[in-house]
């Protein structure tokens, strides 16, 4: 399947995505799913200049990504979908039932969030949203880079992995 990863990452396009995942998975297409970025030429230009020439980047709203999902899935190039937060991924999964696994790549500290991993902090509401995803049959795991251990949702939410 050409779509290699559905990733939640508050930095969206950055080194771990472009290089850390991009090179080992031979990624040639990034799909950034964010309603704000999808409606802003300036934001798009910012991210467009952040990807290497051999990598294409598309900007989609959640609705746009859902409408184009089959096109991306049929693209011969390996791709990664990136969203900035859990609510966006939740909306995407509802709109695209084909999504069966979600990677949490980076959700950093902010007020109200508790540390779960070095690179994952969650509010109680966000934990519930992830559990809801899992209850819909989506496999939710955390992993910042390919060489890191895959942390299952249960372990992530329990906080055991942060200890």
């Amino acid at each position, binding site marked *: 399947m050409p779509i290699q990863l559905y990733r939640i990452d*508050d*930095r969206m*396009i*950055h*080194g771990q995505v*472009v*290089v850390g995942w991009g090179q080992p998975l031979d990624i040639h297409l990034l799909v950034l799913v964010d309603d704000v970025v999808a409606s802003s030429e*300036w934001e798009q230009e*910012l*991210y467009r*200049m*952040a*990807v*290497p020439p051999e990598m294409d980047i598309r900007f989609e709203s959640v609705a746009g990504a859902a409408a184009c999902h089959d096109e991306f899935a049929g693209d011969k190039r390996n791709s990664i979908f990136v969203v900035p937060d859990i609510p966006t991924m939740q909306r995407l999964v509802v709109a695209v039932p084909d999504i069966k696994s979600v990677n949490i790549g980076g959700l*950093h*500290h*902010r007020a109200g969030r508790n540390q779960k991993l*070095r*690179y994952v902090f969650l509010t109680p509401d966000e934990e519930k949203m992830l559990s809801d995803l899992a209850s819909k049959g989506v496999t939710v795991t955390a992993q910042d880079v390919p060489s890191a251990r895959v942390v299952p949702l249960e372990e992530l939410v329990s906080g055991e992995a942060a200890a």
Partner: protein
Amino acid sequence: MSDDARAVTPTAVVIGHGGFAAGLISAVEQITGRGALLIGLSNSGMTPQEMQHVMKGYIDEGIRVVFTDLPGGSATICARRVSAVSNGVVVVSGVNLPALLDFVFSPDMPAESAGRAALRGKESITVWGQG
């Protein structure tokens, strides 16, 4: 750190992944004694908003040059966001040691020196032998 370096005001921020900035500045200090011209930051554990906030703070204090490591890295994206709303701020991505060494010898004109330093950094990447 040399006594001269202690007396100078920083003229640029260096930000990157992990210990990238600290390592580069340490090398600049060892070679020139001018490491104090550079403020080192790591993006580790920081949200984009936190990075922007910290960078904006330094720019409000008069810093006009931001060096970053990876063109596609979060630090570069944050620096470009900050530069877009700040007059006269220069962002140089892909910085290396030769570029910083060139830069710290022109502390009075940092924004003008940044472009030349970037060229020096590019020119310094050389391959000998057969790859």
